[in-house]
């Protein structure tokens, strides 16, 4: 079909949200796909979910469908014009007045009168007829194209709105979800939900209704026209439709399996490459270059053979599908030619013209096209199903911790923290904290001591209400943290943790992250108090220095200090320091130590630290072992008690 390459769906692509590129994330190929299901069979529940997303715009979708239908109708008239042209031309110098549009128009009721009325010769009438037909054809196409233009705008607008709403909804939902979701879900996966999963639904949500409807109507109309033009020929060819359909589905399945293999093989190639590049130092240090190249090439060989195999499947089926289409044409050609001959030999028989033959040819193409297109549509839909299901699962995920309906706003607190029989595990079968009890007075500094994995950071997370205790309760100034709103709680807390997370933006932006309304002066004052004002001013653009993706353009120590300043500007009542100083050199360490004293003054502070100097100054030491508080007291009292802490202390200070 001449116009096939011009169908809008072929043209209309929008550059997608580039593949999610985890900014500065550790070794992982950005292009290596995830091992998640790509396709999913039709599932009514998922479909209902998708329809739910589309529902606010149902009027638009209806209009879109009608427009598409009209465009289709306009296009489907055109083979009739072709027929008209051919039949006008065919008998050489004797235009067939019987079917001539111009003749009919001129002759009003009977074409034979046309010549008499117009006074034109037969040839001239033929020319007139050709021009009329072409003009009508052009007019029909013009209407069709105008409608199409309007359709594109309308359809895209609605579809994109749905997609963007979905994006926003996913993001907002992610903000609601608790830390436990982030713990157990890989970064890449979460990112995929908000990016490529939604992008993959583009074809279905934006063009799906249109594609489905226009293909179905195109096929139906073509079939009906074929039957009306000559039902015998129609019967002779239409049975090929179901055959083609079955073969196409079968082919999709086989080629789908082949592509899946290709993708898997490619993933292996790309992740091997990515891993090797990221681990280049280790590769060089262990002298593995030759071996690695061999491994890589063997993966490449697999990839090659997978690709060639997929190509062979395509190479077999594609011509086969074409062959069936062609078979239909041959049938039309033979049958049609016979009928034309028959008409010519026996004028009294039912008339069949070459024009009709050609028109049937084109309609047959139009009947067949959608069958093949269905394959694509089916693929897109299956893919969208898989993505939609994942997004729906995410949206259905209830946050583990959420404000109760009766949550109250926490008034400004003094900072008393109390754990009452708190038992907690990240997974319910593995308890991390067992029956933890303690009481902290406002303004106290508490140090949590114990081996890695004994539950120190978990206590911090529970105070933050990142998680809620399975048993017992966490109280702040006498309020159970479950009864207050998360926002009001977090507004009075500051946390500095070991991962020193910074957002893209300037140093200034980051320091006032928690309190955007803080003035520049307040930020300067904060950094001066933390003795790091000069250090910030020494940066390339001072406080306006861009910290880069995840703070990559500032040093580890500077990042740490920015985090301290951020917590300081937030002016929290309760300050939580989770191994905040583990990765800095001596100079920065000293700076931080001094800053800490100012930062912790008049605030309740919890510290998880490896440094003795921090621990010994604490008002209260909680010694944890396997999730239980085994000792508590000040440094002095615990040393003289000569229990667990004293032995830990000895370990800390052991001489080699």
């Amino acid at each position, binding site marked *: 079909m001449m116009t096939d390459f011009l169908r809008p769906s072929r043209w209309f692509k929008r550059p997608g949200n580039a593949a999610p590129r985890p900014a500065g994330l550790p070794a992982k190929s950005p292009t290596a796909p995830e091992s998640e299901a790509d396709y999913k069979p039709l599932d009514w529940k998922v479909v209902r979910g998708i329809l739910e997303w589309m529902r606010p715009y149902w009027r638009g979708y209806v209009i879109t469908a009608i427009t598409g239908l009209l465009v289709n109708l306009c296009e489907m008239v055109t083979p009739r014009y072709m027929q008209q042209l051919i039949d006008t031309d065919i008998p050489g110098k004797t235009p067939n007045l*019987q079917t001539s549009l111009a003749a009919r128009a001129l002759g009003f009721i009977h074409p034979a009168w046309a010549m008499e009325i117009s006074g034109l010769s037969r040839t001239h009438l033929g020319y007139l007829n050709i021009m009329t037909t072409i003009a009508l054809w052009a007019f029909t196409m013009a209407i069709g194209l105008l409608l199409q233009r309007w359709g594109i705008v309308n359809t895209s607008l609605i579809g994109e709105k749905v997609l963007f709403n979905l994006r926003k909804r996913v993001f907002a939902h992610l903000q609601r979800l608790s830390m436990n979701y982030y713990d157990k879900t890989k970064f890449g996966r979460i990112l995929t939900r908000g990016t490529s999963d939604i992008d993959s639904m583009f074809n279905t949500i934006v063009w799906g209704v249109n594609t489905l409807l226009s293909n179905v109507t195109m096929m139906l109309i073509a079939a009906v026209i074929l039957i009306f033009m000559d039902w015998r020929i129609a019967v002779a060819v239409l049975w090929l439709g179901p055959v083609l359909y079955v073969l196409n589905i079968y082919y999709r399945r086989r080629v789908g399996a082949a592509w899946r293999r290709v993708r898997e093989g490619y993933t292996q190639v790309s992740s091997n490459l990515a891993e090797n590049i990221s681990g280049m130092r280790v590769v060089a240090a262990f002298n593995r270059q030759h071996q690695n190249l061999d491994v890589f090439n063997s993966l490449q060989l697999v990839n090659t053979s997978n690709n060639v195999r997929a190509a062979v499947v395509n190479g077999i089926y594609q011509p086969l599908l074409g062959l069936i289409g062609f078979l239909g044409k041959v049938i039309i050609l033979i049958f049609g030619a016979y009928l034309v001959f028959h008409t010519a030999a026996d004028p009294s028989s039912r008339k069949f*013209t070459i024009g009709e033959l050609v028109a049937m040819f084109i309609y047959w193409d139009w009947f067949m096209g959608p069958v093949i297109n269905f394959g694509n549509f089916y693929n897109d839909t299956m893919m969208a199903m898989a993505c939609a299901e994942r997004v729906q699962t995410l949206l259905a995920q209830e946050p583990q911790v959420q404000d109760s309906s009766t949550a109250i706003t926490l008034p400004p607190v003094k900072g008393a923290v109390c754990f009452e029989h708190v038992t907690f595990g990240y997974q319910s079968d593995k308890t991390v904290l067992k029956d933890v009890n303690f009481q902290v007075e406002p303004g106290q500094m508490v140090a949590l001591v114990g081996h890695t994995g004994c539950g120190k950071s978990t206590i911090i997370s529970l105070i933050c209400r990142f998680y809620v205790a399975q048993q017992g309760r966490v109280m702040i100034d006498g309020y159970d943290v479950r009864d207050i709103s998360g926002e009001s709680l977090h507004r009075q807390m500051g*946390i500095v943790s070991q991962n020193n997370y910074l957002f893209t933006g300037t140093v200034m932006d980051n320091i006032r992250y928690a309190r955007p309304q803080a003035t520049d002066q307040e930020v300067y004052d904060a950094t001066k108090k933390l003795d790091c004002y000069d250090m910030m001013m020494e940066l390339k653009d001072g406080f306006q220095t861009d910290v880069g993706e995840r703070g990559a353009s500032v040093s580890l120590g500077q990042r740490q200090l920015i985090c301290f300043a951020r917590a300081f500007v937030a002016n929290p009542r309760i300050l939580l320091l989770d191994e905040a100083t583990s990765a800095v050199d001596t100079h920065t360490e000293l700076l931080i130590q001094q800053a800490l004293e100012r930062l912790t003054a008049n605030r309740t502070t919890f510290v998880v630290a490896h440094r003795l100097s921090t621990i010994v100054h604490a008002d209260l030491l909680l010694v944890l072992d396997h999730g239980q508080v085994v000792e508590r007291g000040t440094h002095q009292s615990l040393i003289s008690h000569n229990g667990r802490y004293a032995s830990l202390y000895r370990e800390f200070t052991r001489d080699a």
Partner: protein
Amino acid sequence: MAVTRRRQQPKAGGAEQGSTGERQEDPDESRQSLGSKPEEVTPTLVEGIPPEQMSNFRLLIRMFEFVGPVKYLAILACILVALATFVDISTVNLTRLVINNVSTVVGATVKLPVSTLTARKVTVPSRSKPAASSSSSGASFIQEIQTHFTHGPLRTTINLIGLLALFVAASTVVTFFRWFVNSKLSMDMVFSMRASMYDQLQRVGFSFHDRHSSGTLINRSLSDLHNIRQFVNMALVQITEIVLYIVGYNILLASISPTVGLVALLPIPFWFTYLRYFSKKAQPIQKQIMTSGDELTMVLSENVAGAQVVKAFATEKTEISKYDKTADRLFDRVLKNVGLFSNFVPIVRSIATASSLSLFLVGSFLCVSGSLKVGDLIVFGVAMGNILGRLQQLNQISNQYQTSIVSARRFYEVMLAQPSVMELPDAAPLPPGSGQVEFTGVSFTYSGAVKPVLENVSFRAAGGSVVALVGPTGAGKSTMMQLLARFYDPDQGVISMDGADIKTVSLSSLRKSICFVFQETFLFSDTVANNIRYGSPQATDGAVEAAARIAQAHDFIMELSNGYQTLLGERGTTLSGGQRQRLAIARALMADPKILVLDEALAAIDPETEHLIRRGLELVLTNRTVFVIAHRLSTVRAANLILVLEHGRLTQMGTHEQLMRQPGHYREVAVLQLSGDEPSFPVPPGGPTVPEVAL
């Protein structure tokens, strides 16, 4: 118009990476955006001209160098394309002949005057009545068919249809081979491209990897390579196809009627001008969309990665509004793009329709005047559609060319970079020895940096000794060790091992004798056991376990779901920092090196476990030289030799006792830390006198 068989053209090479066969028809834009901007690098080059100064033409020529090894396949592919084109156009032509043939019959038979026509109108049976039944007598009907079949136009028609079937069968076979050969061609090409890229990346040395982030390099080897490959393939196979089709159809048209052939050429300049104009207009918007899309992804990714911070500071609402604002900006740009396309599609289709219709108009006039036959009309539609469609593909290729040139520049930046460390042609293996190391006047500056990292460093470490390196971050400790393994070559000075200058020995023997445990532990996505035996793949399971026991890793490995066969990495179990370090230590032990370098290797391990590991190491590491870079005094003080590095200079050297007796960085830091803690620091019963000190 009617006859072309629409079939998917086998797309050379687009094969892999796409999710389905159809999808790869799109030159996946996302891939383009993955490539990051070329950074400022001045790699040393094997050839005279650095890639950033190469002319586009040179790059274009260079891109085809990978065709060399597969040139016979490439030629075969082109021959197949030519064949397919010929068969395809012939099919159209044959259909035309069939129709023409039929029309001659009709044209010859219908010589009825108008009066007969009107008269017939009355006698013609209703349309739906089957032809067979309307035939007056069965016998005459059969006779009639027989005459038609044995001679006359029906015979010719049947012959032509038979020929047509033959051509279609041929095209089926050709198509099959095209898929096969194209895929093979493309895969073989990409195979050698990837292999040489991989090899080059492994050989090019650390200084290159320092300048380029791993993300950039991964993008280069995946997406840039993909772009180049796709373009070369397109340029080879598709351009041949396009040219042949355009020329072929023009010839066919001209042979039917020169007038029509000329008319068919008319829309081409308009068509092409408009396509170019549109590409130029669309590109900036597409780029904007890409940028906005990246921004949006960035906000999302930051929020996912920093979820804890967002929650801790209760900034969820701010973040949501930030995201919404970014999304709205993207939406606006997408709408702009929609507007552009909504004009583009109708305009392009109008041009195509107008050209086809004018061909029909001219053709029909010629038909009526008798110089053409109706079958010819059918060819016009098909030909016009093909010519314009192929031209549009040409435009796509020229867009692809822009992308591929950028990609090629980056690709050759990597491929032409000279390895920073080269082996001498007559390099001998490292002589046997106890692992004695000597630095003599070693200075080193990282390429691109102004300040030297090491300045005139000289020391000598006896074989089998433990050497500790201390000093502030950035003093050059790690660099020193990397020089020892020849990851870089010093600018001045000589490093020798067991008496041999390391520049004269073979790289593999040198690196086999040194093992590193880095602070940042990199493990591969493989089983625990295979990670441990990474440096010595033939090691037995028993040996692996023994190494794991020394590194205090055995116990936690046994707690993993599949013990030593547990998969690590992206799709496997995630380990804690301390666990990873212990595996890295086991891996290093497994490689059985002469020299072991522990680069802050114990930082993430708690003191108790560290103590156990050290005791284990002491047992194994007899007769090995150990270099330790550490902050903990407890680790450092047992060393036979302590080297204090400050700003790239070796300022102090000696044992702990010696260094504590002399003024300098070592004592300063120790005392500074000690005095900070001392006042409230009672000596615990039976405890040591020196607390943990960060050095």
